[in-house]
């Protein structure tokens, strides 16, 4: 992450807890880097192997758990839009709360998804409760 290369004031803005994270560019980049191979360029998923993010009811119904899901991964059976999936979703231990916030804001505002934007402090608080 080229955080170091950002001018100081920008860095402050990004790290300032509690402010909205509008860094969509980062969310998109992180998605391409860490997620698109599996979930597809448009969040479409792959057959019944990998669930979609586009129009996923899981995103809406489990909003408060998503930060931990992205952080820790999971491979229990999961039901998305009525279809059961059972495969490996890898964890992303290296992503910071700010990065996870941007990532979630990206997937929750694309491909027909329309959730309210998250704040970093909200995501941080959820992550503090991950097992």
């Amino acid at each position, binding site marked *: 992450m080229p955080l170091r290369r950002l001018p100081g004031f920008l860095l402050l803005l990004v790290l300032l807890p509690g402010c909205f994270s509008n860094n969509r560019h980062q969310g998109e980049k992180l998605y391409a880097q860490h997620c*698109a*191979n*599996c979930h*597809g360029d448009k969040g479409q998923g*792959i*057959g*019944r*192997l*990998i669930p979609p993010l586009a129009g996923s009811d899981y995103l809406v119904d489990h909003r408060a758990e998503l930060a931990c899901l992205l952080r820790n991964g999971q491979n229990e059976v999961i039901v998305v839009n009525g279809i059961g999936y059972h*495969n*490996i979703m*890898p964890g992303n231990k290296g992503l910071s709360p700010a990065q996870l916030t941007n990532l979630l804001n990206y997937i929750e505002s694309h491909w027909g998804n329309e959730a309210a934007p998250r704040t970093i402090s909200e995501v941080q608080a959820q992550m503090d409760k991950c097992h």
Partner: protein
Amino acid sequence: MTLKRLLLLPALAGTLLAPACTAPPKEAAQLPILGERDIRPRADGGPADTLATPVPAFALRDQAGQPVSNATFAGRAYLADFFFATCPGICPKLQSEMLSVFKLYPTDARLGFLSITIDPAHDSTAVLRDYAQRLGVPDANRWHFATLGDRAATFTLANRFLTGVMPDTQSPGGLAHNGTLALIDDRGYIRGAYDGMNAQEVARLKAELPLLLAEIDARKKGVAGR
């Protein structure tokens, strides 16, 4: 980067990079023959000939429990790759690209599909069947998801299909491999090797496939051909 490390295998690197050096085929051009070459010394002591070798004999078992061998694809072209069911790295992307080719030829008997697992200990017939169905491939005869049983032998076979693979604790899933889609002709020669992780390469595969199918059609009719 694992890919870079794999490319250090000089022999493999040579074969993988070679197609990039040739000009894109023109209309009615023939695809090159890739893969291992046999060196045949010439009787007159002149420079040795190198002859392309077809892919080696293999005996696999697919998701329907049926045997799959070179004979399964006799007289037909097929597209082959290496994957494993629980692969968290490149396989989902690789398999979805192969699926996009499959969807162009869902019932065309001239072209078969073969995905070989590099994790035979885990990927039983039942696992392969579940995987195929979840990917959206109900007919095992169109696209075989197959196992050789033995891991070391699978790695050797993968190399002959221009896929580099090795155990690697740093890689997701414990195996480092690259995503080559190998296009094999009716006589077993590799006629194209495409990086399934690269959209342009997959587009090139889709553009070149009809050339090979036309060549095979022509051969069948007893017209020309190499």
